[in-house]
């Protein structure tokens, strides 16, 4: 898990204003290729907005975003996705009526033109069967593959979220609170999973669970009120005075 020299994702003076309120304020962020980079900060610090900016779900007010030196500022999410950035969602965000298998099939198909083939049978999707099974097995969902996800338990849905990101096989993965709402055991399993899939990839991670951040992150950026408060390794950040007052203190009280 050594961080390379290239920068995978870079923002320059990235700013997003909502009716006069600066949710993200001149953020300069550089995520090095192959690293696991965590974004932390108290509620309302702008983590999710930053995520939405990075993935094109929100257009910035000013500033630029580059992915492997390619400018993606202001591009729609599907195009950003096609540049090799895949994300998971903080609030479970799935297609309620489809099964896990169908989810993964969809994810695998996302980068092909197959989706436009309205004259072909959906059996076409079956040709990735081995890979789908493999992906589902990785997150432990294979036995439930043909159940509509509306019937899955919360933790299972989170796992499926991860498998979807994985299916895309992206150079850059953005994970928005992958362990939110999980029980202790699931958290540890997820940490293992993320660690495994992070090999050879760049991961940007948001999580409130310091245990998760501590065990995964190579670098940590602390946000507060839309600005970067501190950046460094987990230990550096944890010992930073400002961070302790602003965030960790709060977290420990909680």
């Amino acid at each position, binding site marked *: 898990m050594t961080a390379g020299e290239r920068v995978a994702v870079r923002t320059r003076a990235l700013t997003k204003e909502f009716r006069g309120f600066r949710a993200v304020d001149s953020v300069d962020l550089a995520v090095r290729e192959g690293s696991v980079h965590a974004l932390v900060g108290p509620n309302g610090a702008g983590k999710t907005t930053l995520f939405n900016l990075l993935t094109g779900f929100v257009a910035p007010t000013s500033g630029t975003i580059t992915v492997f030196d390619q400018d993606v500022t202001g591009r729609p999410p599907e195009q950003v996705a096609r540049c090799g950035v895949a994300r998971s969602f903080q609030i479970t965000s799935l297609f309620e*009526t489809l099964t896990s298998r169908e989810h993964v099939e969809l994810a695998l198909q996302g980068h092909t033109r197959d*989706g*436009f083939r309205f004259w072909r049978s959906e059996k076409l999707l079956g040709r990735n069967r081995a890979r789908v099974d493999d992906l589902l097995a990785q997150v432990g969902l294979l036995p439930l593959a043909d159940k509509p996800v509306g019937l899955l338990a919360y933790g299972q849905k989170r796992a499926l979220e991860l498998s*979807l990101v994985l299916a895309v096989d992206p150079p850059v993965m953005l994970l928005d609170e992958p362990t939110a709402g999980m029980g202790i055991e699931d958290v540890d399993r997820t940490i293992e999973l993320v660690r495994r899939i992070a090999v050879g990839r760049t991961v940007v991670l948001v999580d409130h669970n310091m245990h998760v951040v501590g065990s995964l992150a190579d670098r940590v950026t602390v946000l507060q009120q839309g600005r970067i408060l501190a950046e460094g390794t987990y230990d550096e950040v944890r010992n930073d005075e400002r961070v302790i007052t602003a965030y960790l203190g709060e977290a420990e009280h909680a």
Partner: protein
Amino acid sequence: MTQSVVTEAPATEADVPSTGSDPRVRWVLLAVGLVAALALPWFVYPPVAMDIVALALFAIALDILLGFTGLLSFGHAAFWGSSAYVTGLIATHYGAPFPVAVLAGAVFAMILALPIGYLSVRRSGIYFAMVTLAFAQMVYFIAYQWSGLTGGENGLQGVPRTFFGIDLVETESFYFYYAALPIILLGMWGAWRIVHSPFGRVLMAIRDNSQRARALGYEVEKYKVIAFVLSAGLTGLAGGVFAINHGFVALTELHWSTSGEVVLMTVLGGIGTLWGGILGAFLTVMLADYLASSGFQGIDLVTGSVFVLVVLLFRRGVWGTVRHRYLARRLRRATRRGAADTRE
């Protein structure tokens, strides 16, 4: 307030397995449906039977958008009506065989749907409904003004039923039914194919969660426009057959009330089911037909009340409710079996 479109139907369907329906049941249904389609004009006055199947295809085409993409088009009369006019004009002026004329109408509907779809999908949800409605009104007014071509409020009269050189006379509506049925069935098969294709899968994903579909790299707008155009094409097939069946085209076909009627049929039958559209069309046409000669005044009173009741109480629609019950029973049985297995 949820902002996604038609979240309710899918969400309730989620409590039963959606893909688990028995393939044998599917074949039985298909056979029953086919027999019913073939037998229909023996029991129903043939032109009315033709109306039923044409409107059934119309409802199914709408369902591709409403039930499978989560877009309520309240302006589909534009495609139904414009295809009817184009079909009628081509049959009248060029003496083309009716299948050719109908096909031309459908193609025209698709061409018309492209810019309308492109503009409309910029808005989603309820906005989409309003924008499509406004577009359809525009088409309606143009047809009204252009009376040199469309015959204005007199309608386009005297559309012939030419069938490769043979003139199918009006009284032989019975034969016409069987001559035109293949077009309708083809359209229905097309709808089924679209829904059960990789493309259809993406549509359902967009319906359930368009943001997530975007994150997976799907160009949601593009998919919506294609679905819109395909739906318009199938609608056009139905509208063309309808025009030939009646031997004329009236402005009513373009009127917003026609758009409303087909939404009613789809919702009544059950959105997102395809079969529901057929059932909805059958019930609605038969009801209107019955009321027309019953001496009851005020058909809209019945239609409107049915609509209100369905939306309030049976949002799954007739077909949807039956299917839901059936699937729920299957699920219960399966669970019981499962429980028995563990006991052993």
